[in-house]
């Protein structure tokens, strides 16, 4: 379990992480989601014990990171953004070093490493130095190193950044396997696809946790509004015109046509009539299921969640 209580951080008087509370239970994968500069990495670095917080406390598997840093760190695996590899060390030596530093040796560790090598596509590269690996395989090696010691808590800073679809699948398979073994996993990302793979999402903006919800609940969220697609409204000016309609809450120009958000109580016919009045072509108007991105954006805009749902697991 990862417990973060009242943690905050400022650099040169600029607060980059406001008071934050978060609990990640064992067997759970939580995604810290937010744009660049929202404080995701700072939160993970504080949790990993590499950046001291200005206030608050972090517990890894019930061990206080400040009071017993050695014991707490021995329970976690950390993958920093960028990997953090020794260029001249081979794949195997990276893993051996990690295992020996975390006192994880023996048959079970070897078996686990073998599974990770297979799962992450590193099997044929074990004798290659990190400098010879492609960007994607370097990511895989960094992930493998973070997970190989079977940590009680894994902290992964943007593990899928820059990876293609198949490698992303491999990453999530390995992460899921770790969580199924009872580890708590905290992942940072600004990619919506990553959120879909997690059990819960913590949305951050400007160093503040603006929402924390289970991903399942996110899918079931009625949002209180509907989305309609206007396939014939193909000009950006149509989106501007749509915003003048009383029923329209928001309009966007995406994928070559306009989408509008309307009040949940509004009927599609009424909306269509309003849009026509403002010169927007509504031929073929249809309901559109909000995407996960829409839902996340909505949650972040709403900026509030039921406080009882801040803790996950």
């Amino acid at each position, binding site marked *: 379990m990862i417990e973060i209580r009242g943690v905050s951080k400022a650099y040169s008087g600029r607060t980059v992480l406001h008071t934050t509370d978060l609990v990640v239970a064992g067997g759970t994968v939580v995604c810290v989601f937010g744009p660049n500069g929202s404080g995701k990495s700072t939160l993970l*670095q504080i949790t*990993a*014990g*590499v950046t*001291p917080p200005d206030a608050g406390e972090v517990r890894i598997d019930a061990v206080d990171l400040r009071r017993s840093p*050695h*014991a707490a*760190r*021995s329970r*976690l695996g*950390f*993958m*920093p*953004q*960028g*990997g*953090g*590899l*020794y260029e001249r060390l081979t794949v195997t030596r990276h893993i051996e070093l990690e295992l020996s*530093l*975390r006192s994880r040796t023996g048959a079970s560790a070897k078996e686990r490493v073998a599974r990770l090598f297979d799962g992450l596509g590193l099997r044929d590269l074990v004798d290659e130095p990190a400098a010879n690996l492609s960007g994607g395989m370097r990511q895989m090696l960094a992930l493998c190193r973070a997970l190989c010691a079977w940590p009680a808590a894994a*902290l992964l800073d943007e593990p899928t950044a820059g990876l293609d679809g198949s490698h992303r699948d491999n990453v999530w398979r390995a992460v899921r396997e770790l969580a199924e073994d009872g580890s708590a996993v905290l992942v940072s990302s600004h990619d919506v696809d990553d959120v879909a793979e997690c059990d819960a999402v913590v949305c951050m903006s400007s160093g503040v946790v603006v929402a924390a919800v289970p991903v399942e609940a996110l899918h079931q969220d009625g949002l209180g509004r509907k989305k309609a697609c206007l396939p014939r409204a193909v000009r950006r000016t149509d989106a501007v015109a749509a915003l003048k309609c009383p029923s329209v809450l928001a309009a966007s120009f995406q994928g070559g046509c306009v989408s509008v958000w309307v009040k949940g109580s509004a009927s599609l016919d009424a909306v269509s009539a309003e849009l026509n009045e403002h010169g927007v072509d509504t031929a073929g108007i249809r309901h559109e299921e909000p995407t996960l991105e829409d839902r996340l954006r909505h949650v972040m805009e709403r900026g509030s969640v039921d406080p009882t749902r801040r803790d996950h697991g």
Partner: protein
Amino acid sequence: MASRLPPLLAHEVEVFGRDIIGVLAPTVIAALWIWALKPQSSEIPVAVFVAPSEEVDQRLRADALVRAISNSERTGRVVEVDDVREIDNLMRRNEISVGIVVEVIRDDEKASRSRIVVEADGTNPVSVLDELRQIERGVSMYLDSSNDPDRRYRVELRARYNPRIKSAYLLLPGLAVLLGNWVAMVLACVSVMRERPRALSLYLRSLPIRPWERVASKTLVASLLGMISFFFIVIVCGTLFGVDVPGPIPLVMLAGGSSFSILSSALIGVLVGWRTRTDVGSVMSIGLLLLLTFFLSGWWSPTYELPAPLQVVALCLPVTHHVPIAKSLLLRGGDLGDVASYVIRSAVVCLFGFVLSVLAARRPASQ
């Protein structure tokens, strides 16, 4: 088209400006060196032995003679000893640079003459010749002024431990000590610089490694390589340049005495790596330290010839305590008792460096 050189130059100035201490290092060192060359406190400690004899002119006794011999202003602390062997002991412990023996030689029943034996420590590359020349001048002046036609003097000048003033003898301890310590310092700093990329340093700090383990891992290998370099020079000097290197027991004692100093240098290298933020800053700072050790460690000129404030700086350098150990054991045939005080000083510097390094390992500025 306007030249791109001005903005490029401005950029270079800006980059170097961020490491201002390192940039100023050569100037600071030059200033210190010019100051050190000015003989403000270069007083040579002297020991004198006057052989018990009624025929020895009382005017020759101790202080007056010594001051005359050493041109007075360069004569520092004067020790009068009761046993001629004590001069040897004092010189092996690096406590004096000049010894004077005054004795009467009876050529026959009627005639006698005084002999003045002046010995200088022949292991100080710069000062030995200078000292001998000054002493010779001083003796001549003294004899001229004594104006005693009945008295006949014989003056003998000797360089102890290096009678033929061989340059290999002069350079061996200094080269071995400097190289050993420099290798340890530079390699330890490089091992820290190698882990400076942000992601790697973040990863390393997340590992369950205690600060003292970090310090030990960074310094022990560098120290071992420093020790190997040290003994490599000793062996080369012994085999190729004919320097009489003593047998295994003094060498073992030397290894013990050297280890504290070389470990301290590695600790300094680690400290520099952790306290500087950039590679340029690290390189500049290490360069500054190398120059300081070169000029202030006393390997070519005794540290008592430095101005007093620089003597304090020299005391903080591990190399300063290593040089006397190497000189005494390698060249003067000293034993553990002769070098014990320097070994203890090295150990104190080492302990101090270790504590500072452990504190720095908790939160390196460079990461």
